[in-house]
């Protein structure tokens, strides 16, 4: 099939294809519109702070929403154009264009449209639009700085768009850092709360660790690709065999370090729960489709640096420590740890945050296992239901006047039915209930691990299945504790009511999106199992694989489905047993596993270890350097400054005073002596000068006449 050549063919844009041309320009517009709106809002905010103007929240929200709406429309247009052309076979998967950024180098503003960016951009657009819509109702009550909020939210969304459509590593880095800084602003939105500002700082610093890896990785890549950081160029080189995965192992691991920081993988996941200090729409956006997905997107973009691709198979590269294996194992470990932490957590938003960590681990492990399409598959489904879940959680919190502990909720189903239903849909998807979107995609992830070349892949598969069970457990637990059971909230102060329609609209939209996805994905699954011949668009994963040019073998798909279905039902059953049927058993198990629970609640000591590392290793080294600097370097400098240069200066001073001044003064004295006698001639009267001049001319003429006789004038 010529598909391989077609997918591997790389064509730069602007080769006369006007569609590609306009698509690239639309991409640029997608990135720029929210940014411009953000600048506008910041300007309005500045005027507000100066006391000149008071902008109502509605107007700020309208500006923010309109810009996002516009960009979303354009991004969906880009997606549809892209797919239309793709289905017709008109166009290659890669459309790229670049503008000069630093003259004479290949560092350029580059935009790249491939399946990844086209789909991700549209998805981000829909989710961000919903969240923006939701945020107005959420933020307008008692919040004064809605303008600032929307400005940063817009900025955040625009940065993510820029990252998605970025065409080379350099460009990605720029938007990567913009994401970091805008997330800093948003997490620290309630800056007057110490916990919020600390959380923002923590998120920023954890991210920075990854960013250093990213930067160094870019430098190494830059050297190896001859100065061209374009993704397409790197792929081209790899396909031609000029670069192999073994030479790119180190940069790949460094770039994975960046993803670890941004996507909160195993050692650096501590910042993500803290980031719940921001407003709930921010959490929804940050967890679903923007920030934490950026790291994974980066990994997917640089997928060929992790794996060699032979035909349709991703092959583990021939390196002593293959980066892919590291990624898979760290990912699956993160998934397990996140799920465990979600199980013990009692804060509604933190449960979701830990579940995010867990799902991100799944995605990372799939990337490591060579399953690019499963990873993206799961990324899409996760983005959808996680944004839905956060918005629902936000609605609950909003209703209960900022109570976040699930132990103080319960029985809310009676009061907020629609919220409960939508959240139930989301939780089912999260839990991996059969034929929900999460189920299909998670199954694909575990299948990709099973079919990969990763060392100890059976262990990883087992952990993945275990995690699926735990996920089902905590999802069910959360739904039960929040919406069912007895009403444990403070009834004197809080009267729950149904969520407003403004809030419900995004919830229902997203929930229906989850349902659509579920149906769509399930059709693909069933068709695959039943070996039906359907149009490619229905076989979503296969479709993705075709587009990416990398297939995961689907051996043992049915077996995997059965396994995971069993695990899901075990988890859900356990949750129902422990919370509804027999709560006392739960308490006894808790008391017996108290130590383990504390360990989990301390996040497995990872943060403690990091802090210990910083306190006892990094800071002492830094202090040692500081001491070295202050004692040795400064001492040397001071020694030379004080003694040696002073001696030289003294010598030159003496020389200057005695010799040079002597010469100068002596000549000045002699000139003054002679001038005091000659100055009498210069009386300042022009007439006298003229007389002397005339006398001189006359004497000259006399000399000529006397000694030269007749001058030969003629």
């Amino acid at each position, binding site marked *: 099939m010529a598909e391989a050549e077609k997918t591997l063919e790389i064509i730069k844009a602007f080769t006369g294809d006007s569609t590609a041309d306009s698509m690239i320009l639309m991409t640029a517009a997608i990135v720029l519109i929210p940014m411009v709106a953000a600048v506008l809002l910041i300007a309005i905010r500045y005027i507000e702070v100066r006391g000149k103007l008071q902008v109502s929240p509605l107007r700020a929200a309208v500006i923010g929403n309109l810009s996002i709406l516009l960009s979303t429309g354009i991004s969906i247009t880009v997606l549809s154009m892209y797919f239309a052309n793709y289905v017709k076979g008109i166009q290659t998967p890669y459309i790229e264009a670049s503008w000069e950024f630093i003259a004479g180098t290949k560092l350029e503003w580059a935009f790249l449209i491939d399946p990844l960016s086209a789909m991700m951009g549209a998805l981000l657009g829909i989710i961000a639009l919903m969240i923006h819509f939701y945020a107005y109702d959420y933020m307008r009550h008692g919040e004064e700085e809605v303008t600032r909020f929307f400005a940063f939210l817009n900025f955040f969304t625009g940065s993510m768009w820029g990252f998605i459509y970025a065409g080379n590593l350099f460009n990605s880095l720029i938007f990567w850092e913009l994401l970091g800084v805008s997330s800093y602003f948003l997490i620290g939105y309630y800056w007057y709360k110490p916990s919020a500002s600390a959380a923002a700082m923590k998120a920023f610093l954890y991210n920075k660790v990854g960013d250093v890896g990213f930067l160094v990785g870019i430098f190494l890549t830059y050297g190896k690709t001859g100065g061209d950081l374009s993704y397409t160029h790197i792929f081209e080189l790899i396909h031609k065999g000029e670069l192999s995965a073994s030479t790119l192992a180190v940069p790949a691991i460094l770039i994975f370090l960046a993803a670890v920081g941004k996507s909160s993988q195993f050692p650096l996941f501590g910042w993500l729960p803290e980031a719940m200090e921001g407003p709930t729409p921010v959490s929804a956006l940050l967890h679903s489709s923007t920030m934490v997905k950026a790291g994974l997107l980066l990994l997917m973009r640089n997928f060929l640096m992790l794996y060699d691709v032979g035909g349709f198979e991703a092959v583990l590269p021939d390196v002593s420590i293959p980066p892919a294996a590291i990624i898979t194992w760290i990912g699956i470990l993160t998934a397990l740890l996140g799920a465990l932490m979600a199980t013990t957590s009692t804060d509604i938003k933190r449960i979701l945050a830990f579940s995010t960590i867990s799902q991100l681990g799944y995605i990372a492990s799939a990337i490591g296992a060579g399953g690019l399409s499963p990873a993206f598959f799961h990324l899409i489904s996760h983005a959808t239901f996680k944004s839905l879940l956060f918005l629902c959680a936000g609605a609950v919190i909003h209703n209960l006047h900022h109570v976040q502990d699930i132990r103080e909720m319960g029985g809310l189903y009676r009061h907020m039915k629609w919220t409960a239903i939508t959240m139930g849909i989301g939780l089912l998807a999260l839990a991996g209930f059969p034929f929900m979107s999460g189920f299909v995609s998670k199954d694909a992830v575990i299948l990709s691990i099973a079919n990969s070349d990763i060392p100890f892949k059976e262990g990883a598969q087992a952990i993945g299945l275990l995690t699926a069970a735990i996920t089902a457990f905590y999802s069910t637990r959360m739904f039960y504790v929040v919406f069912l059971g007895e009403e444990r909230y403070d009834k004197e102060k809080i009267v729950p009511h149904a969520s407003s329609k403004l809030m419900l609209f995004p919830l229902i939209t997203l929930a229906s999106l989850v349902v659509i996805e579920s149906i769509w994905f399930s059709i693909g699954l069933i068709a695959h199992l039943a070996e039906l011949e359907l149009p490619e668009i229905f076989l979503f994963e296969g479709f993705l694989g075709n587009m990416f040019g990398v297939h995961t073998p689907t051996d043992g798909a049915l077996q995997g489905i059965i396994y995971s279905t069993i695990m899901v039902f075990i988890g859900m059953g356990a949750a129902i047993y422990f919370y509804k049927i027999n709560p006392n058993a739960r308490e006894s198990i808790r008391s017996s596993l108290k130590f383990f629970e504390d360990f989990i609640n301390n996040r497995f000591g990872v943060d403690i270890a990091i802090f210990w590392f910083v306190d006892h290793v990094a800071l002492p080294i830094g202090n040692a350097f500081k001491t070295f600097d202050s004692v040795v370097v400064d001492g040397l400098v001071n020694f030379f400054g004080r003694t040696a240069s002073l001696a030289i200066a003294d010598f030159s001073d003496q020389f200057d005073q005695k010799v040079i001044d002597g010469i100068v003064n002596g000549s000045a004295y002699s000139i003054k002596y002679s001038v005091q006698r000659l100055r009498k001639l210069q009386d300042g009267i022009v007439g006298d000068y*003229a*007389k002397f001049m*005339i006398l001189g001319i006359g004497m000259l003429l006399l000399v000529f006449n006397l000694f030269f006789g007749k001058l030969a004038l003629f």
Partner: protein
Amino acid sequence: MELEWFVYLSLILFSIGILGVLTQKTAIRILFSVELILNSANINFVAFNSYLQSTTSGTVIDQYMGWVFAMVVIALAAAEAAVGLAIFISLYRNFREIVVANIYELAESEEDE
């Protein structure tokens, strides 16, 4: 009428001008003397021009050089007179006189020794 006559006339006028420049006290009279000097030069220019016209069959430049130079001198004198008027008036405003010998602000005074 010979060329010598013109040259001697010019010489005498020139000497009168020089004498005026040396002996006159006020700036305006010095300027008069300078005009005399310029006129003496003009006499020479024109006289030599005619001489060359009559003696040589030279080029156009040889035949009219003197006239052109005389015109340049006249233009120069006109410009000089315009600038001179402005200078004299500003001098007069500042010092209430234009006796050149009394205007020596740039010179060091005797007490500074």
